[in-house]
């Protein structure tokens, strides 16, 4: 982690702050702090033991010195005892030094000196009465030193102990100048027989003589003290190590516990806020840092929003409010979010919440921000406020990072779990069919909707091929859905879903091959929706649309027919006008010529009169046609059916047409079956029909003949009449137009044949009124025409005539009905 942090620091340019944050930590925090504490304890222990030892040593040395002094004083007393006071008194001048007593006494003293190592000198001092100065008497120094003679003043005559020494033995420490070394001196009174003392015996001993034991002891004490210190140090170290191990263990346990608690908190908390607060509590306990804030990253606009806080003052959310995460963001949290690396800083006081007295982390706390990263994306930032004095070290940062990663994982897991739960509950409750299959296409899972739709339980279908449950809409393609999905990764469209009982229903499916954990193996998930109703609705819609379209077509057609009828009617009127005007022209013209009598011969006059009559008759025929048509149109055409002979009507009509055929040099023949052709008919109308057909045949035939054939077809019990010609014929495509009212096969002005175009329409109407049929056949233009009429043959034993009656407007229950006014004015 050091790399990242160092990098962060150098990048931010605040090394001082970061170093300041880190150095104290090493000293004080954790094991470092523990070591400091232990060092202090050690010093204290050393000091205390030193003081105690010093006191004890001092005391012991004092006692030792006193003891030494006392021994010296005792030695002085011994010396004094060896000197008889009387003899000593007698030695008063240096001349006495050569006397035997002096020599003897001095020898005694020397013996004592020599007997006691460390004695520098042994001597006696005397004070004359009234004199203040002490003078040497005896001096038993080693030979090499200058000997003090009798009466030589003692240099330290003023020493008070000398006076005291007249009473009792005393000792003292002093520097004897003549030896230049520290010495202890002891004095003891030399008493005479009466116990009076006028002289003292003295001795000087080397310091070691008295201080030796003391110094020895002190040395030993020092050694002891040293050993003691070492011992304490070792003990302390051992204790420290033990303690440190304990602390580390405790911390680890604590951290572990904190992580567990974090996981638990994440898992158990019911709401997000509760979760986050709990997590912060756990983290605080785990790290020992009290003040926390968790930001969550919001999008659009990209910003950090305070999600939870711990031990932050009221209204801290307002104070914190980090700027948007960006490269140069001012807020450490935003920087951390942007760089996805921790940021630790301790200098800035910007956006710092104001804690109450004694509640906050103190002046200028260290702020540590650790991003929670999920999939390379910062989702949240964990920030703590650490007291400056506490410091925030690498271990702290590592721990917080650990916690943060745990929290991030926990949140992620929680989110996934929540999504899984949501998905699972959706899959269980949805009406949508969900089928899972393994890579080979064997069914592994069905949700309840699928079970319902297929009519089987999940365990009954598990393992069967998915391709057995669905079929392509277009049968026979043979394509396997599983193969297609494994190849393309996905399939969307409509299929048949096959129930267990073999019935099927249409479904809209979305099939996906889902990457499994093992690479290359892809499980298949099929989502399907029953579209039976949708299909049905579509079908109905289509049907409705078709119906509307049909209706539209019909209307359009009707409209077209009306327009066509209108057009034909106008054309009919124009043609009728033309047909009426043409004969009228002749009538008026010839009448004018007659009237004006311009060069009229009588023959010519007759011719003109005939032409006028013929033209008038032609006019009459046209007018009759128009009238018939008007009657048909008005539904007032009357047809009266009564038994009659068709053959007779045919012969009559042929006879009538003979002259017209002769004018065109056409043959006109009638082939009639022998005997009558009885049928129910309106003889006038039948004649009209035949004349019309024969007229047409003659009109449209220039060469050849017109032939009428009539017979009775026993099989169908009908009278069949053919009118055949060898004329111009009719193109097939125009044959269907023939019977239409106002119809003209060719509407242009170069019509070869005159006529209103009404004849056939009228003819067919008449034929149908007589229960007959009419058909026109022609092989095509120039191939002649054959018109076929059929009528029911009449047999006297036939069913009641009323059944054969034309117009059903009479109560006709007996013989032929004569139906009101038969209209036709035409006569043959």
């Amino acid at each position: 982690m050091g790399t990242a942090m160092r990098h962060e620091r150098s990048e931010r340019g605040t090394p001082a702050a970061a170093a300041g944050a880190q150095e104290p930590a090493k000293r004080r925090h954790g094991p470092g702090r523990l070591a400091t504490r232990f060092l202090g304890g050690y010093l204290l222990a050393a000091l205390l033991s030193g003081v105690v030892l010093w006191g004890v040593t001092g005391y012991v040395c004092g006692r030792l010195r006193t003891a030494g002094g006392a021994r010296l004083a005792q030695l002085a007393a011994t010396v004094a005892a060896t000197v008889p006071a009387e003899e000593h008194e007698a030695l008063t001048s240096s001349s006495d030094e050569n006397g035997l007593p002096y020599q003897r006494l001095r020898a005694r003293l020397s013996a004592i000196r020599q007997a006691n190592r460390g004695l520098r000198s042994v001597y006696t001092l005397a004070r004359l009465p009234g004199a203040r100065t002490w003078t040497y008497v005896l001096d038993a120094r080693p030979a090499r030193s200058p000997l003090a003679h009798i009466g030589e003043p003692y240099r330290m005559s003023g020493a008070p102990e000398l006076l005291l020494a007249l009473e009792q033995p005393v000792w003292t420490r002093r520097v004897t100048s003549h030896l230049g070394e520290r010495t202890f001196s002891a004095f003891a009174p030399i008493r005479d027989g009466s116990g009076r003392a006028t002289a003292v015996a003295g001795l000087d001993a080397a310091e070691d003589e008295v201080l030796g034991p003391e110094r020895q002891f002190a040395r030993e004490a020092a050694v002891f003290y040293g050993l003691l210190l070492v011992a304490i140090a070792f003990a302390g170290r051992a204790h420290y190590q033990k303690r440190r191990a304990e602390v580390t263990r405790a911390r680890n346990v604590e951290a572990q516990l904190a992580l567990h608690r974090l996981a638990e908190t994440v898992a158990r908390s019911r709401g997000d806020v509760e979760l986050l607060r709990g997590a912060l509590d756990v983290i605080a306990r785990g790290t020992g840092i009290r003040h926390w804030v968790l930001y969550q990253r919001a999008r659009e606009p990209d910003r950090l929003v305070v999600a939870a806080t711990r031990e932050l003052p009221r209204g801290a959310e307002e104070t914190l409010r980090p700027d948007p995460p960006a490269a140069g963001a001012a807020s450490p949290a935003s920087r951390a979010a942007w760089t996805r690396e921790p940021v630790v800083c301790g200098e800035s006081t910007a956006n710092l919440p104001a804690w109450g007295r004694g509640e906050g982390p103190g002046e200028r706390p260290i702020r540590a921000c650790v991003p929670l990263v999920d999939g390379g994306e910062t989702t949240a930032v964990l920030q703590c406020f650490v007291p400056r004095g506490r410091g925030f070290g690498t271990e702290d940062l590592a721990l917080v990072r650990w916690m943060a990663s745990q929290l991030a994982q926990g949140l992620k897991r929680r989110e996934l779990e929540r999504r899984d739960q949501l998905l699972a509950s959706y899959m269980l409750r949805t009406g949508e069919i969900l089928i899972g299959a393994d890579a080979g296409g064997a069914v592994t899972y069905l949700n309840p909707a699928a079970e319902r739709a297929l009519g089987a339980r999940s365990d009954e279908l598990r393992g069967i091929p998915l391709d057995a449950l669905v079929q392509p809409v277009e049968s026979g393609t043979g394509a396997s859905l599983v193969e297609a999905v494994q190849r393309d990764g996905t399939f969307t469209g409509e299929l048949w879903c096959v129930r267990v009982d073999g019935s099927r229903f249409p479904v809209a499916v979305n099939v996906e091959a889902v990457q499994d954990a093992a690479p290359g193996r892809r499980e298949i998930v099929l989502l399907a929706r029953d579209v039976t109703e949708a299909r049905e609705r579509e079908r109905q819609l289509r049907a409705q649309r078709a119906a509307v379209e049909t209706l539209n077509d019909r209307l359009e057609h009707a409209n077209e027919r009306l327009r066509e009828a209108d057009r034909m009617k106008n054309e009919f009127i124009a043609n009728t006008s033309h047909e009426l005007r043409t004969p009228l022209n002749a009538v008026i013209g010839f009448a004018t010529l007659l009237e004006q009598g311009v060069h009229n011969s009588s023959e010519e006059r007759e011719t003109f009169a005939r032409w006028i009559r013929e033209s008038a008759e032609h006019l009459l025929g046209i007018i009759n046609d128009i009238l018939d048509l008007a009657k048909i149109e008005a539904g007032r055409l009357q047809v009266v059916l009564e038994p009659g002979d068709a053959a007779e009507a045919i012969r009559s009509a042929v006879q009538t047409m003979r002259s017209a055929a002769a004018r065109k040099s056409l043959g006109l023949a009638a082939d009639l079956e022998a005997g009558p052709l009885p049928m129910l008919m309106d003889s006038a109308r039948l004649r009209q029909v035949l004349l019309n057909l024969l007229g047409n045949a003659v009109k449209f035939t220039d060469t050849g003949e017109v032939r009428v054939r009539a017979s009775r077809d026993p099989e169908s019990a009908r009278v069949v009449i053919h009118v055949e010609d060898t004329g111009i014929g009719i193109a097939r495509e125009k044959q269907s137009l023939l019977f239409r009212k106002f119809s003209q096969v060719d509407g242009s002005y170069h019509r070869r044949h005159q006529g209103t175009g009404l004849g056939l329409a009228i003819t067919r109407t008449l034929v149908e009124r007589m229960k007959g049929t009419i058909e026109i056949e022609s092989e095509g233009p120039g191939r002649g025409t054959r018109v076929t009429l059929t009528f029911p043959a009449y047999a006297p034993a036939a069913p009641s005539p009323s059944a054969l009656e034309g117009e059903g407007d009479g109560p006709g229950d007996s013989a032929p009905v004569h139906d009101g006014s038969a209209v036709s004015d035409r006569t043959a």
Partner: protein
Amino acid sequence: MPSHILIVEDDPMNAKLFELLLTRKGGYTVEITEEPPRVLERAASGAVDLVIMDVSLSNSELDGAPVDGLAIARRLKTDPATRHVPILLATAHAMKGSREKFLRESHADDYIAKPIVSSDELIQRIEALIERRSHASPPAAR
């Protein structure tokens, strides 16, 4: 020398009537035909002073296709050799607008509806057409 009039008419009775009216009342010489090639030939010959043209011709064919009087008139009026010959449409098609329609389609010079009620009017019309033509264009073809 009397003017010579070509009558194009399919109905024999009406053709006869025109002949009688024109010869006896107008003093013209006439010839009658319903054959379009003949019409074109006669008009181009320069012998014809005026054409009376029926519109509905039942039996007329030109170049193998049925034609009506309007087509023949148009043919005459587009051919430089016959353009100057006046054409009078005489037809029983006399609905409203027929006159304008026929004159526009055929480029004919005048129109008279059948039945011809006044033979005098017919002759006046013919005279006017012949007169106009003789003034308008010199008788180059004569």
